[in-house]
């Protein structure tokens, strides 16, 4: 097998759970992790006589996403019924959008290795309801059905088949994950199923102008599985085609334990969904005024924010990009800067001191034990020279370990920098008096000894002396 003879075409369908308190067609809670069927109301259970009513928060999320990728927001979109029998699909049909999705078009720019970037076009994004869960392994010979997830709002984002490698596909998925999280469209908790990915993969010879026959590998819930499944499919398809076999258009599942994909049992793959417009719901009408309101409410997009950070806070490109990459982190930075009055010093501290600790202990910025107010206060003390950078690090570590107030900790441990010459002068005098030899040598021209005197004073003050002040006083006294 030689991959170099082949080109790969990948399209992704991302199923993003929307960050709403209640379900798409009922008032039941969408909270993850509740005991089975405790969050399924009559509508979610598909009891006779119940009717769906759209939770309007889903429009806001879909429009926000659409604006975030520069897509067209359709003024009129239509819900349809997708018919199939499965025990975790309570009504026997899923309410989705087939011909008239709420979002169409749009594109994103993904970052690849060696600083390369690529534009990937989005075909459409539509609203639909999630299914419940079938639990096969807990009841001997029986399947349990948990309908808590049934009716959780989903946005299905469909890309054009423009990605050429698993690297591109993963970069695309990561970008979308970051974007929907950033925009507050989803909580992005992949371990809880908030973002699931179906990968459409096909291969063709380099000179072939039409796409090959594709397979769809469903329900990939981590970037690693996405990558592995695509890699497996590429190899499998090339091997098959090179040995003269053909590819079946089929739905496959990825088995992470065996690291392979295999066809779904035919029973699980319905062939004809018999779509038709959902008669229980009116078409969704959205006007320009509504879109404008959403546009104004939207959080600043990452690209815009990192540019603003460079202009407004005079940050370098790398710091600006890093701090703007996550809403919570960006908010933290802006709060710290507001308090400290020094954007560059704040950026530096967050990047070097805070993020290193967060990464080390796998804590998100939202879970930071040190609030932005304390970090900001600490940096303001450095800036006005109340404490040295070195002392600040000690205080910061104490805060990380659970101290709640920087001010109190500094007071309790008497760590305020000594800048008062009335306090420093007697100390300097006694040091000079105790080291007459060095004083003599210095005065004879060995000015390197300045460091020795500063060191002695720092030792004596346990680092609290303001070094600049010490330098000035020493200069005065030694250069008499």
């Amino acid at each position: 097998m030689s991959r170099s003879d082949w080109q790969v075409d990948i399209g992704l369908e991302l199923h993003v759970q929307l960050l709403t308190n209640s379900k798409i067609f009922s008032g039941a809670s969408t909270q993850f992790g509740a005991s089975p069927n405790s969050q399924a109301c009559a509508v979610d259970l598909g009891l006779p006589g119940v009717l769906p009513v759209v939770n309007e928060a889903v429009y806001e999320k879909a429009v926000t996403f659409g604006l975030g990728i520069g897509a067209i927001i359709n003024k009129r979109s239509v819900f349809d019924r997708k018919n199939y029998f499965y025990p975790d699909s309570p009504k026997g049909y899923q309410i989705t959008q087939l011909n008239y999705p709420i979002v169409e078009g749009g594109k994103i720019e993904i970052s690849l290795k060696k600083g390369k970037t690529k534009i990937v076009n989005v075909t459409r994004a539509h609203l639909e309801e999630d299914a419940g869960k079938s639990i096969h392994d807990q009841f001997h010979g029986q399947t349990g059905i948990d309908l808590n997830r049934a009716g959780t709002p989903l946005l299905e984002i469909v890309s054009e088949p423009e990605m050429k490698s698993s690297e591109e596909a993963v970069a695309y998925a990561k970008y979308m994950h970051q974007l929907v999280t950033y925009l507050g469209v989803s909580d992005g908790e992949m371990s809880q199923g908030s973002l699931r990915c179906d990968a459409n993969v096909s291969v063709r010879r380099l000179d072939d102008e039409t796409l090959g026959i594709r397979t769809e590998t469903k329900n990939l819930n981590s970037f690693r599985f996405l990558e592995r499944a695509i890699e497996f499919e590429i190899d499998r398809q090339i091997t098959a085609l090179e040995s003269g076999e053909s590819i079946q258009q089929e739905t496959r599942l990825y088995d992470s334990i065996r690291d392979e994909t295999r066809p779904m049992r035919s029973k699980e793959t319905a062939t004809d969904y018999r779509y038709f417009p959902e008669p229980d719901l009116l078409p969704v009408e959205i006007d320009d005024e509504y879109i404008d309101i959403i546009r104004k409410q939207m959080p600043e997009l990452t690209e815009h924010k990192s540019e603003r950070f460079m202009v407004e806070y005079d940050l370098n490109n790398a710091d600006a990009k890093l701090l703007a990459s996550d809403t919570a982190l960006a908010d933290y930075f802006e709060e710290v800067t507001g308090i400290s009055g020094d954007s560059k010093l704040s950026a530096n501290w967050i990047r070097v001191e805070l993020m290193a600790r967060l990464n080390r202990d796998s804590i998100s910025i939202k879970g930071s034990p040190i609030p932005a107010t304390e970090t900001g206060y600490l940096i303001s003390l450095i800036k006005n020279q109340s404490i040295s950078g070195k002392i600040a690090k000690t205080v910061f570590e104490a805060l990380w370990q659970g101290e709640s107030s920087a001010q109190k900790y500094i007071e309790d441990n008497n760590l305020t920098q000594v800048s008062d010459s009335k306090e420093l002068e007697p100390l300097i005098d006694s040091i000079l008096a105790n080291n007459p030899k060095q004083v003599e040598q210095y005065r004879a021209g060995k000015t390197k000894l300045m460091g020795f005197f500063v060191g002695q004073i720092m030792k004596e003050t346990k680092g609290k002396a303001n070094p600049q002040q010490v330098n000035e006083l020493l200069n005065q006294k030694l250069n008499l």
Partner: protein
Amino acid sequence: MSLHEKSIAEIVAALDSKKFSCRELVSHHLDRITEANGYLNAYITVDREKALTQADAMDKARASGNAPILAGIPIAHKDIFCTKDIKTSAGSRMLDNFIAPYDATIVSKLKAAGTISLGKTNMDEFAMGSSNENSYYGPVTNPWRKDYIPGGSSGGSAAAVAARLCVAATGTDTGGSIRQPAAMCGITGIKPTYGRISRWGMIAYASSLDQAGPLTRSAEDAAILLEVMSGFDPKDSTSLNRQVPLFTQSLNNSLKGLKIGFCKEHFGKGLSSDIENAIDIAIKQFESAGASIQEIELPSSKFAIPAYYVIAPAEASANLSRYDGVRFGHRCENPVDLADMYRRSRSEGFGKEVKQRIMVGSFALSAGYYDAYYRKAQQIRRLIKNDFLAAFESVDLIIGPTTPSTAFKIGEKSDDQIEMYLQDIYTITSNLAGLPAASIPIGFSKGLPIGLQIIGNYYDEASILNLAHQYQQETNWHKMSPTAFSLEGIQPSIKP
């Protein structure tokens, strides 16, 4: 006059002046049910205790002076409306064990207005049928003649009202299921504009066509109930967000200047001559009251039945998918696997007509057939609507026969599906267009009632009820009661 012959207004007045109590009224009707239901089979479930408890509560409320407007009026609900704590079967074995944890919106509204539900009435399974022969609980007998069908699918409601086993009843109308049994049982029934009454808690047959309405003995009673039942419901996205007119306020408007249309195609071939004659007499009545009659055209109506039998089964095929034996309803014994459970639960739980419509609907929606059937049917629907909109440019109401014939014998048309489907030929168009339409009794043919259909423009139930009421002021057809059921007191055994 006996208790069970009084109109709603007369009952309210009698209760107000303490001529009898709610308990007396309710237990009188319950006794009639006990006596007659074995013969009529109009009720599937009767909840005697609950009805009497409610009657006592309403007597108390009346005594304390804060009774709701319809306090104590005994009614019945078609067994398609979900009722908390009482079985709701939709006439199907599938739901023989189903008790909803909620009341349908109209059940709540009628309860809040003080009405007392005596029980749940028989119906064609999932409202699919025109004769009430498709019920898991057996056919309903027409109170006017033994061995005759009462019409369907709201056959139990129509029979119960006609036999005076309740003052009024609720029904649903997807292709004529209120109007056709009302016509065949000699009572008044109205299906309002689509969306006028909430569908929440009403078991769906064909969602875009289903509409609830009252079956009553008079237009006045219908107006009173329609006012209570109507109104926007946030739980039904398709319910109309419009002010509900006070239908009772316009009942006595003059008919002078009213323009009534009729469609020539509705007369002649296929229509019983007795019905045609009865309509001619009714038309003269309208003219003498000052209305004018003119011919209108509804050219697309001839496609209504085929369009209906694509759209309704298509929607039904999806609406009935939830009956899979997984969460509620009938589940087969000892399924070997999932497919077996689905297949046997549904095969056992559904009757023949329901299965047939699911098959037809699934076929019409399948890949490759959708455009030829479902899409085409929706186009016809639009044409039918346009015909009506054009007609209502020149007339206020359209009248015609409700049914091609009077009630027929049980079993007579069971083997002739086309003949059975043609029962709805005059009623289906107003469902496809979403227009309000009523049927009122206008005479008899060989002892069986004849119905007149009155179709109104969108949101104009008031004009329909006004015409019907004015007609009923001048005629007594609506007061005719099947002899076997009009005798004073309870007969030891009722044999017509």
